[in-house]
């Protein structure tokens, strides 16, 4: 400061109060919040992007608005039955999360390759703070998208028909999406820090999602057949594949939230979760053509949630450790 005061480049009165700032504000809060704000408003935000994602996320409610008769048939009077899982799979896992992955993957590795990271790390801000600031900005931006999209969805549904379960639907979606955003965002961020190429950091989580979906429709139905070694168990249960099935844990957390918001989960929702491994078909011994859907309970939803949180955190911590040691040059 004395340099400017002497030279008059920056007028001395402009720096009044700087020395009076507390060291917490100066060393931690201001640099951290500036990284957060810059990532949120400059790197991520654009009106076009916001509008496009929200529109894409609301294709299902829009189609429902256009094509479903009004009033809807009695069995579809529940908005959760019509949209619940469909909205999670389409709007979140197939639209919002890939956008989040795309943004997170380029956040660190792209900045390193462009040389802009060198400017940041040459300032008195720790690399941990840079990464956490950026991650929280991504998370907040996509939470904003999520909230706006959910608002639009709810309005569309309310215009369509006075569904009797709007509030529980809104609440379950509101609680569930941040978990998905956290999980995929933190993993991609970890990969972005650990890997040198944006492409690789982008491909790994995208492939994970694709494999998760393909397995639900192409591999898992075969695994739910009775095992030749033990007719009472499916292959999925016999080999305890649910331990490694990300799709199962993701939907198990959703079921945990539904346990709170919709205490009695409907058969149509349960039916959609059979292929994910959260419900199984149990045939009646006396009348084999009759069956019921039984929840599997391999893991409690809390355990699945902890597992997802821990997997994400592990990726992030490994990423930070690699990023801290990485040599950053122009």
């Amino acid at each position, binding site marked *: *400061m004395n340099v400017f005061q002497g030279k008059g*480049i*920056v007028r001395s009165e402009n*720096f009044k109060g*700087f020395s009076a700032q507390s060291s917490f504000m100066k*060393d931690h809060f201001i640099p951290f919040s500036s990284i957060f704000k810059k990532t949120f408003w*400059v790197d991520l935000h654009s009106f076009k992007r916001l509008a496009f994602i929200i529109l894409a996320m609301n294709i299902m409610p829009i189609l429902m608005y256009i094509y479903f008769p009004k009033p809807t048939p009695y069995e579809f009077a529940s908005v959760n039955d019509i949209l619940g899982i469909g909205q999670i799979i389409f709007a979140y896992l197939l639209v919002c999360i890939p956008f989040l992955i795309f943004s997170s993957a380029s956040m660190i590795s792209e900045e390193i390759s462009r040389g802009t990271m060198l400017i940041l790390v040459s300032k008195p*801000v720790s690399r941990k703070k840079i990464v956490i600031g950026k991650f929280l900005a991504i998370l907040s931006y996509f939470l904003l998208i999520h909230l706006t999209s959910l608002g639009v969805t709810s309005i569309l549904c309310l215009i369509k028909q006075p569904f009797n379960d709007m509030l529980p639907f809104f609440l379950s979606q509101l609680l569930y999406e941040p978990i998905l955003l956290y999980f995929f965002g933190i993993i991609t961020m970890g990969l972005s820090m650990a890997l040198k190429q944006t492409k690789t950091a982008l491909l790994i989580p995208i492939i994970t999602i694709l494999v998760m979906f393909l397995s639900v429709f192409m591999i898992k139905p075969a695994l739910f057949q009775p095992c030749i070694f033990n007719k009472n168990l499916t292959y999925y249960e016999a080999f305890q594949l649910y331990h490694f099935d990300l799709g199962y844990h993701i939907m198990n957390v959703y079921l945990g939230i539904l346990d709170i918001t919709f205490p009695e989960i409907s058969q149509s929702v349960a039916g959609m979760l059979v292929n994910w491994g959260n419900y199984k078909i149990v045939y009646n011994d006396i009348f084999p053509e009759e069956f019921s859907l039984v929840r599997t309970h391999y893991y409690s939803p809390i355990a699945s949630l902890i597992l997802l949180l821990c997997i994400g955190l592990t990726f992030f911590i490994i990423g930070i450790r690699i990023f801290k040691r990485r040599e950053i040059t122009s």
Partner: protein
Amino acid sequence: MTALDYLVFMAQLFGLRKSVARAGARDLLEFFGLEEETSKTIAEFSGGMKQKVGLASTLIHGPKLLILDEPTTNLDPVGRKSIIDYIKQLSTDMSIFVSSHILSEIEQMCEEVTILVNGKIVITDKIRDLKDKYSLVEDKFVLDTDDNDLVLREFLSSRDEGIKKAWIGDDSKIYIITEQKRKLQEFLSNLIREQGILINDFHQVEVPLQDVFIKLMEKE
């Protein structure tokens, strides 16, 4: 991102409050003559303007020492001159360390120089002293008179005056190499007196820093 926003962001990374950072950033933009460009994004700036913003961003927190690596790279001659001028101005108030391969620019910006050969420090000295120390044995002069042909003939016919070599260059001026500077000056004053020659220009050609560097390289 505009230049103002960028500078405010940089200042905040150093822990400056937004109001303080904004005022400081405005002052710096004014100093670098960019106050009219605050609404433009940096992407719209020319190379020279970008370099100015880069330089301004290093000054935003008031450092006592500035380390600049190749500050004039990729700039056109106007941009180069402008950055060199700013560095010279700033150097009156802070220590500036410039790393560059362009020695002619170093000569314009710096007082002291450290020369590295193969990654090892070979010498650290003031540029003036270094030139005196490593200049050639003979001195080179440039002379321009109202009758250069006559003066050249006089020079060539008087080898005993210490003039080693003299010729007329492409710019029609006389170039003289001598080992005895004093004798040349005396010979020239005689010419003025006796022949009535009018002198337009007479100066000694400075040894470029590059020659000193090459000499040091050869020595190493």
